[in-house]
């Protein structure tokens, strides 16, 4: 690991001044991803500005009936919060499905939003990677890609976003609050992440030096009927090979509203708008659920070794929708 400076400001203004003042400075949350990447030489910050002393460790009710979660909230605290478990159960389930208890005790909400892909080429500094070194190439398309993207990838990058939490946030239309050099901004999660297109090194729409302060979960009473399901290669402590966050509002056997987001299939938490659209107003039946899943996945562009993800997430979606009908 390269040597680095370390600061732990207590006030947001100090944190913003520090990051603006030092080239190569980075914010540090729980350190559960950035520090690993520093050990691998993928990240080489000159200074780490630890943001865990900032006043961002909170979960409060918003006036409109939603919830606001501070960016410094530890993942364990988020998952354990009664309001989260009651009103947005898929979010609590998603957070608990990620990592281990020890990591969740350290990891923060802000850090989780910004965690980097597990693509083996991104993590290996001896290999080309367009995300790590723009224009260096991407060996994944013909190489090891069994857990890489089937949706939303580009010729330059097919990395997947590894977050479980962000999949649930995408389903609930969360809003990310940030402080940027130009001032504060509220970024809907749909606008927060970027698809790689021709700039895979840019993963979010944040300005350099941006500080995430909070995440708002808008009021959504029927989100209480939500579920996160995750498939992985062992029983615990591993990243998803496919996951879904689903919320369902059913009345008289008809789908009044639905939210579906997919994980481990795209460079961003993938909101399944096409599936949602095809379901609204339709009967809540397995046939309709299958059609909805197909409507989303017909756009998939699987490669040699990740074709399995198409039936995997299709089956996850259908099963979870059926389960939520039964729970309604």
């Amino acid at each position, binding site marked *: *690991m*390269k*040597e680095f400076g370390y600061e732990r400001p207590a006030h947001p203004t100090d944190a913003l001044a520090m990051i603006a003042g030092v080239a190569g400075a980075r914010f540090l949350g729980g350190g559960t991803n950035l520090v*690993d990447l520093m*050990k*691998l030489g993928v990240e080489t910050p000159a200074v780490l500005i630890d943001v865990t002393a900032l006043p961002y460790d909170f979960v409060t009710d918003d006036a409109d009936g939603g919830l606001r979660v501070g960016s410094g909230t530890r993942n364990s605290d988020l998952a354990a919060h009664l309001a989260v478990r009651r009103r947005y159960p898929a979010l609590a389930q998603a957070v*608990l*499905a990620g990592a281990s208890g020890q990591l969740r005790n350290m990891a923060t909400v802000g850090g989780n939003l910004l965690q980097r892909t*597990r693509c*083996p*080429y991104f*993590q*290996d500094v*001896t*290999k080309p990677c367009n995300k790590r070194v723009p224009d260096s190439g991407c*060996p994944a398309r013909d*190489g*090891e890609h*069994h857990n890489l993207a089937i949706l939303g990838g580009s010729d330059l990058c097919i990395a997947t976003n590894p977050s479980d939490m962000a999949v649930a946030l995408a389903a609930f239309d969360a809003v990310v609050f940030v402080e940027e050099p130009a001032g504060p901004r509220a970024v809907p999660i749909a606008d927060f992440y970027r698809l790689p297109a021709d700039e895979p090194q840019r993963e979010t729409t944040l300005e350099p030096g941006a500080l995430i302060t909070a995440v708002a979960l808008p009021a959504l009473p029927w989100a209480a009927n939500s579920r996160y*399901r*995750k*498939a*992985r*290669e*062992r*029983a*615990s*402590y*591993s*990243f998803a*090979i496919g996951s879904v966050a689903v919320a369902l509002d059913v009345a008289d056997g008809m789908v009044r509203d639905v939210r579906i987001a997919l994980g481990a299939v795209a460079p961003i938490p993938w909101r399944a708008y096409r599936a949602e659209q095809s379901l609204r107003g339709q009967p809540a039946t397995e046939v309709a659920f299958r059609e909805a899943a197909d409507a989303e996945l017909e756009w998939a562009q699987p490669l040699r*070794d990740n*074709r*399995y993800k*198409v*039936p*995997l997430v299709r*089956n*996850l979606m259908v*099963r979870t929708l059926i*389960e939520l009908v039964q729970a309604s």
Partner: protein
Amino acid sequence: MSDIATTHATKGTIGENASRPDGGPKVRGEFAFSGDLWADGMLWGRTLRSPHPAARIIAIDIAAALRIPGVHAVVTAADLPASVNYGLEWRDQPVFATDVVRYVGEPVAAVAADHPEAARQACEAIDVQYEPQVPLLDPAEAAAAPPIHPDGNVFRQLTIRTGDPSARGPIVVEGAYEVGMQDQAFMGPEAGLAIPADDGGIDLIVSTQWLHNDRLQVAECLGLAPEKVRLSLGGVGGAFGAREDVSLQIHACLLAQRTARPIKIVYSREESFLGHVHRHPARIWMRHSAEADGRLVSFEARILLDGGAYRSSSYHVVANATCFSAGPYKVENALAEGIGVRTNNPPCGAMRGFGAVQVCFAHEAQMDKLAEACGVDPVEIRLRNALATGDRLLTGQVIEGTLPVARVIREAAALPLPPSPEIADPMTRPGGAGRTADAAHVRRGIGFAVGFKNLMYAEGYMDGSAARCRLSDGLATVTCAAAEVGQGFVTLAQQIARTVLGVEDVLLAPADTSIGSAGSSSASRQTWMSGGAVEKACQAVRAALLQHVADRHGIDPAQLTITDGRVTSTDARDSIDLAVADAAPGVVFEEEVEYHHRITHPLDDDGQGDAHVSLVCAAHRAVVDVDPDLGLIRVVQVATAQDVGRALNPLQVLGQIEGGIAQGLGLATMEELTLRNGRILNPSFTDYLIPTALDMPEVLATLVEEPEPGAPFGAKGVGEPPTISSTPAIVAALRAATGKALNRVPVRPQDIALGDGE
């Protein structure tokens, strides 16, 4: 047979669940692993490794590295004072690459600095000019390819021919199988501390499986007499074969010699994956023919093992894979061809099961195919072909010891089955902590497998172990260089001493090279070899003690015995009844012995010969739940019966069984080093998956005790069998649940479901 004193009054003797002397400290986090080593004034060593699978080295410039503040030495092959090559069995591996590099991770230089960061910077500053070559990566092409090493590309080609291999029964089954590259994945990474001594020698504290072999290789490369290189065992955090080859030993000692300062090296997890050998990936073809009732008529096998860039123990892994390729079954006509080759992939060598694991996956799949073709139950077909004492192996060797194959099959099959998936805890369904599968979609499968292998080294190897016992006023001290790598030898050594001497206080001296070699903690051999040495040393002390008492009382020592911790006479008139502790006040008895097993012989041109000391077998029955829509699996239960000879510590045997099943489950369902262009893509425990506690099934175990003639206390080694047939049992269960062929391990979600498996 051993002379077993029945000292029931002495606690912690043979057969009891004596607790481990290192158990408490390990549970409390107080045990000092080799990574915890520290010396005042020490420097940090670090290794620079090749980024290329094959390249010429044009030049190495260390000037910039030496200029970095805090850097005390930079060494390359040019700095080696004596031998430049090392190797476990054959010295074909450069300590540092000279003209070429042959795998990604091959050491090129090493540095010593006063801070790990300075050492890292120094490695980065070493300018190595490489000219990359086209690597040889496909083991199938290796034998015919231009040699990538002066010793050629074939480590060993072994053909075993017996009877008439062209004989055919009416039922023929055939298959091709593949085993991926598994890692030993021990928890404690390689670590050691080399301390220069005043006499020009070196003291090295290191986590290893075999102190004396390391010493020999260090001494050869440093140009020192072996006695000037003194090794002590550092706390070992698991081994499983991966610590048999030298890793940092020579580098650390060379740097200590150069700098006259203590040198500590500890590998990161990533470096650990590069710094030790792995299990040989295998491609195996087999054809069995049988009578209509399933009795085997002929067996053919072709086994290709990728040994990677250097030989390590490939020569003997080929032998084991080929010798045991038919499994524990009688077959008169056979042709088995094994080959281990050199490639530019990472070196492979010893890992728990040592060649028997790969072929067991294949022969057990074949036995299931045969059962289906004959319409015979899979358990029954194995019983019909089971080897037994008096039968011949493929190598012509007659089984003289115990080998209760039929019994382990029956006992494993008789263990109770788990409850149906409907009533199981949702956490134990496929998908685990994600509670992803629901009971309605779960399909259950049951699979059965049997495996066997040899104990100890083979083919004429003159194996031995040395031990010393000291007894003074009832306190016994046992010295033996056997490496405690987690298997529990330290417990057994105490139990043996208590049993023979009738004392409870048994100290274990540190394992080091102040005594003769104990051989390697591998091949399931330490209980037999070093257990035998400890027993023999304790018996010699016991005899001396009894002689001493007899002399004092003027009687024949043959009349004396140690019973219940007391020296008594068989002749009631002598009225001798002394506690062992009081039998010879102030007298010190000390004896050092060497123990050897019976002689074995090399294999001839047809692979025939009396090559193996002893054999061991086990059977496993696996119950697996599968969610075929999601590709998720859960191993619900593994039931096993294992041939243990005699269980010296049943709790420790169970520990070996559970650990071995975990490793077998790992190979069956998740563990594989992913290689691209010779490079390991997943050198971390986030990306190389090993089973977690939640992946572990319920384990039911029956210990089959048929004492082995010639073995100390009749005990067989127990570490390897649990790893051999657990993998094929689990895969057989997956086949039963999914109907898929599953000819490759590890089986991935995409193999068992989701339409992309075949």
